[in-house]
């Protein structure tokens, strides 16, 4: 039933033909496309979106994920009707509410209240309707006295709260949301999530662009993975997530491989190779959740090091140092090191949660305690596992549920 279709995109291509600095020729082309035909010049051939097709049914929540520059924001802009598609067909049914960055048209000199009316007018809500919505909005945004102060005095989180508060109170059929949950405190984030779920239950279609995989898993039913302007994977939110992780991973591995080939040379030492290995000495790219693994670093020291201390750290995809071991503290004493060396660190078990990780390495002199070398990203690996547990670490837990009166 075509009535249930909310968004239909067929063979969408988009390039920014009229860039920020177009020549007169390009303006002429835009004005008279049928007269001035001809090849676009130079970088105009960069396609922000390539042959994108998908359908979204009414009431669905779809997450769009991809790395920076993958075309996510461009796609939202095209859906919002802000920028025209270069080729293909985009069909949108119903009232759209674009919440791309949420602060469209907010004037810094006006108060929160005045800006609420302004945002309403931009979204096509008449003043009297805004007046009836105002108490609800005022309560939702939790700005208190700040609501009547100029927006220029707000923190960025407060501006976003204002935008979000207005946006979600206005009835619409399609919500386009772009990276908006990064702002605001946890309490507001949860409130916003609850509101999105509420809207969805009322039948609104939600398109969400996010970097937060947690967010995607939490609210989206379907995931679309974009890379270099094209859809590389599509499926359930979980499938989308896996595809995204693999994508990020593949690129990361490629980057590291390229770097490895050139050899990471530093003042004190030259890296030869780094690998992740398992109990059977086999090289791994993926480590099973909880399973033992080791990191082997081969390098050449340029001069005689009196009493070197090595550090190895494991960082997750967001750059959090999950573990950082120091050789000396773990009981490795070494003296008079020079020439080609092979350093191994072994973890009998680990509590890293699923995801992508990177290895950092540092070399210090114990006597002076001066850091001689610090090398980031010498290796990368992923931790795999089934299940849906999340967090920065995995803690196996025992659960028990019992009746209150049975409890002794």
């Amino acid at each position, binding site marked *: 039933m075509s009535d249930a279709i909310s968004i239909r995109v067929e063979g969408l291509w988009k390039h920014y033909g009229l860039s920020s600095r177009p020549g007169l020729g390009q303006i002429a082309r*835009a004005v008279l496309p049928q007269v001035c035909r001809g090849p676009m010049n130079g970088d105009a051939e960069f396609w922000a979106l390539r042959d994108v097709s998908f359908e979204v049914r009414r009431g669905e929540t779809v997450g769009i994920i991809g790395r920076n520059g993958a075309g996510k924001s461009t796609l939202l*802009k095209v859906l919002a009707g802000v920028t*025209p598609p270069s080729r293909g067909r985009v069909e*949108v049914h119903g009232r*759209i509410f674009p919440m791309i960055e949420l602060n469209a048209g907010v004037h810094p*000199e006006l108060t929160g209240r005045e800006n609420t009316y302004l945002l309403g007018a*931009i979204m096509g809500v008449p003043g009297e309707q805004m007046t009836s919505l105002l108490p609800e909005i005022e309560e939702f945004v939790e700005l208190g006295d700040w609501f009547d102060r100029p927006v220029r005095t707000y923190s960025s989180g407060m501006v976003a709260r204002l935008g979000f508060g207005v946006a979600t109170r206005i009835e619409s059929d399609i919500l386009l949301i772009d990276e908006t949950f990064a702002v605001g405190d946890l309490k507001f984030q949860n409130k916003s999530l609850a509101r999105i779920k509420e809207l969805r239950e009322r039948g609104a279609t939600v398109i969400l662009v996010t970097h937060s995989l947690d967010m995607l898993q939490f609210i989206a039913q379907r995931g679309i993975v974009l890379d270099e302007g094209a859809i590389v994977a599509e499926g359930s939110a979980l499938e989308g997530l896996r595809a995204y992780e693999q994508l990020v991973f593949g690129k990361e591995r490629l980057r590291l491989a390229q770097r490895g080939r050139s050899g990471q040379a530093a003042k004190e030492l030259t890296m030869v190779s780094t690998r992740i290995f398992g109990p059977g000495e086999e090289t791994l790219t993926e480590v099973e959740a909880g399973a033992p693994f080791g990191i082997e670093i081969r390098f050449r020291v340029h001069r005689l090091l009196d009493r070197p201390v090595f550090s190895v750290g494991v960082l997750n995809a967001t750059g959090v140092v999950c573990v950082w071991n120091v050789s000396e503290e773990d009981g490795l004493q070494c003296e008079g090191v020079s020439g080609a060396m092979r350093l191994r660190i072994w973890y009998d078990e680990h509590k890293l949660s699923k995801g992508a990780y990177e290895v950092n390495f540092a070399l210090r002199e114990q006597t002076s305690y001066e850091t001689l070398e610090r090398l980031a990203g010498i290796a990368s690996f992923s931790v795999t596992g089934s299940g849906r547990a999340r967090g920065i670490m995995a803690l196996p837990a025992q659960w028990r549920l019992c009746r209150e009166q049975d409890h002794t």
Partner: protein
Amino acid sequence: MSAQGTYIHLEPAVEPWRQFLALMWAIAVRELKGRYRRSALGIVWAVLPPIFYAALFTVLQGILHISTGDVPYVLFAYAGLVPWAFFVNALNRCGGSVGANAGIVKKVAVPRVVFPVTAVVTALADLAVSGILLAGLLAWFGIAPGVHLLWLGPILIVATLFALGCGLIVAALGTFLQDVLFGLPLLVQLWMLATPIMYPLSQVPPSWMPLYILNPMVGIIEGFRAVLIRQVAPDMRLLGVSMAATVLVWMIGWPLFKNLSQHFADAV
């Protein structure tokens, strides 16, 4: 293969005109409130340019000995400067209107024409304030309103439409080529000298006349003076040129704006 993709937005109609007016009102209010909230003189800035120029011209007139017959020079100059200032104000506001609303342009699909239209409407608001001052000046010099004041409406409509037509061109091109906005003040200065504001039309050499009256602002300025000061009907020949020019700028400006405005989001 078509060079342009298709974007179709199907939405139950919800009074587009009302929405347009509400949006225009909101942007105009935002513009006026936002602009003057942190200035000491506030709205006075809107009426200052014609006063400033009238004072300047009055001083210059003493040096250059410009004769305006039995009409006091201050009144003569100010009556010409008020509609001129409106025109310049409208053009300047149009030129910056898309960039000033970049936040909206980039994110929400509102009809793009709302920005130059709002720019001209706010310029009209400034004109109204200047007009009150002009009325006071007319009363001061003992000029009572006559029946020809009714002409003011049609002249204002022509002036507004001409300003908006030019404004569409400035807004469309200026958004992509900043050069247009940088060059605008120079062009406007030149244009002012080619318009009978500082001097009466009668001082223009007859041999220049055929070319001179092609300036569409001549009809508008002279029309203003005719109905306000001299209390006669405007020169229809001059006003006809203005009307023809209005049609012409719209024939160029509207398609230009319509086509280029699709790409505004990529440019601002």
